[in-house]
């Protein structure tokens, strides 16, 4: 690890019962939550359990966003991902009732190991790249508070903001059109 990136450059390790130590414990719990949720989401046989794992993973990630000084994004993560996306996926599972077919078995006996190898290579490459690179740190020009996010959204990024709104509107209309087509009544 590159110590120059440690923000509070602590020379001594924080004790377990100090405020810093307890923060570290909570952080480790949330990292474990995120990883556990991710593993459930990608490996569970039944899709309902996979969605539940996704919810757990996103809750852990919201906590990580809180650790990254962004309570607003953490709140949006809970609202949008946990509250909207996961619930929508759960609705689709209930509507489509996709029982994973166990009678056919896996599509190919190689698909599991090959997927594991592919994912392992990609993740290993990214980990090595993250640990070997020295990232230079730029001085902050503002605090990144909610107020500053709002100012940036309505000045510098107002065009992108409007475009995303249009994309969402078209997505809603498109979802309605596709979902309705072919209905008998």
């Amino acid at each position: 690890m590159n110590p120059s990136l440690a923000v509070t450059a602590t020379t001594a390790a924080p004790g377990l019962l100090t405020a810093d130590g307890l923060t570290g414990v909570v952080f480790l719990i949330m990292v474990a939550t995120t990883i556990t949720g991710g593993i459930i989401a990608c490996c569970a046989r039944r899709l309902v359990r996979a969605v539940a794992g996704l919810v757990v993973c996103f809750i852990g990630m919201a906590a990580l966003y809180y650790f990254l000084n962004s309570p607003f994004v953490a709140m949006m993560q809970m609202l949008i991902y946990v509250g909207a996306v996961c619930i929508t996926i759960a609705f689709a599972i209930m509507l489509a009732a996709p029982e994973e077919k166990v009678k056919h078995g896996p599509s190919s006996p190689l698909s599991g190991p090959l997927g594991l190898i592919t994912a392992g290579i990609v993740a290993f490459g990214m980990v090595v790249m993250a640990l070997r690179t020295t990232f230079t740190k730029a001085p902050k020009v503002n605090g990144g508070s909610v107020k500053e996010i709002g100012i940036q959204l309505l000045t510098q990024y107002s065009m992108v903001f409007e475009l995303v709104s249009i994309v969402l509107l078209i997505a809603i209309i498109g979802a309605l059109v596709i979902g309705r087509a072919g209905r008998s009544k």
Partner: protein
Amino acid sequence: MQTISILSLHNSLQTYLVLAALLFGMGIYGLVTRRTLIGMLIAAELLLAAASLNFMAFNRFTAPDPTVGQIFTLFIMAIAAAEAAIGLSIVIAVYRNYKSIDTEDLVELKG
């Protein structure tokens, strides 16, 4: 080389990057091995979440303007919501026509 205690890991950029890499690997594994469309969509959400985590980590530790990464992550969330809405309505339409969302049953265009 200074050793960083395991309790102060939340103050290091590399922790978040490694975690995002693990999530990305899980997403790719799910995308490759899942056999239903909804399962693949769940894996794609994991990939997007990993990308968001990277953005937020760099935003916190290296970026000069700490609002940019947060705004980018918010846009990623909006795009992910749009993607989920469209993808799931396609899944419902496919299910209505084929009575299945298993990718191995959708082979009508297979030569």
